[in-house]
């Protein structure tokens, strides 16, 4: 019986792993964007795209662009994260969004990159991280890097933040802070 249970469980976990993808219907943009839909992402069932800064239970991810309204949204955004939401930032606004949610006061680091829009970093940091293992995406060529501001100070100051990518010169462009599931 135990062997049967183990086989069933393995099968379930294997299947569930392939299904660990988007579950909600909406993709929300807080701030203007000229890039949407298939021009922005691939590999997912297309999402309904909404312009708002107030995510709800249908919001798969909230994308905050450089022109997004940040002030006053920290509590609601933290609640959204704690309810399983995903927040992704864009050029120049990462520190502001982080500060608003977590009550810190980081400022932007030095400007980096070539402003070719690409989100995939030119350098993988912590290449053994489960994200990179599960997503072995080729790095961006140095002359096609996106641009933004170095996150190194924020990363070094926040023990819960892990760097995963950067520019060719060594600065950090991509990092994350996991949300601990509510029990």
């Amino acid at each position, binding site marked *: 019986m135990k062997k049967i249970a183990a086989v069933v469980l393995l099968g379930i976990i294997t299947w569930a792993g392939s299904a660990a993808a988007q579950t909600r219907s909406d993709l929300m943009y807080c701030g203007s964007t000229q890039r949407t839909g298939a021009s922005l992402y691939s590999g997912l069932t297309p999402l309904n795209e909404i312009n708002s800064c107030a995510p709800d239970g249908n919001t798969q991810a909230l994308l905050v662009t450089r022109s997004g309204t940040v002030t006053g949204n920290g509590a609601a955004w933290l609640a959204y994260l704690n309810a399983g939401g995903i927040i992704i930032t864009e050029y120049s606004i990462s520190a502001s969004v982080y500060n608003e949610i977590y009550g810190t006061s980081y400022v932007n680091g030095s400007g980096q990159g070539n402003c070719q829009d690409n989100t995939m970093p030119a350098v993988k940091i912590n290449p053994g991280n489960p994200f990179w293992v*599960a997503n072995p995406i080729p790095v961006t060529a140095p002359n096609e890097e996106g641009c933004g501001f170095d996150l190194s100070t924020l990363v070094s100051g926040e023990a819960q933040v892990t760097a995963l990518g950067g520019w060719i010169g060594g600065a950090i462009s991509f990092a994350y802070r996991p949300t601990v599931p509510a029990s």
Partner: protein
Amino acid sequence: MILLEADWQDNQVNYTSDSRQFMGALIGGGLGGTFWIHVHPMLRPGSRASLCGAEVLALYSVRGKEFTRDAGKRAA
């Protein structure tokens, strides 16, 4: 929360298929967020299981013979 310093909203032509794939992975929950998980009755409420290196805390209900999910949350 995902901190991403890149000018992706500009919509220039050099945005690569790799970047589209990368954004799909992030939006899809590759670094956390809620996802649906189908469970089996042999999994008890509060069970923990290893899933692609991430830890899953599955909270679920069983509806008749359809062993569907409730919410699962992942801390990558």
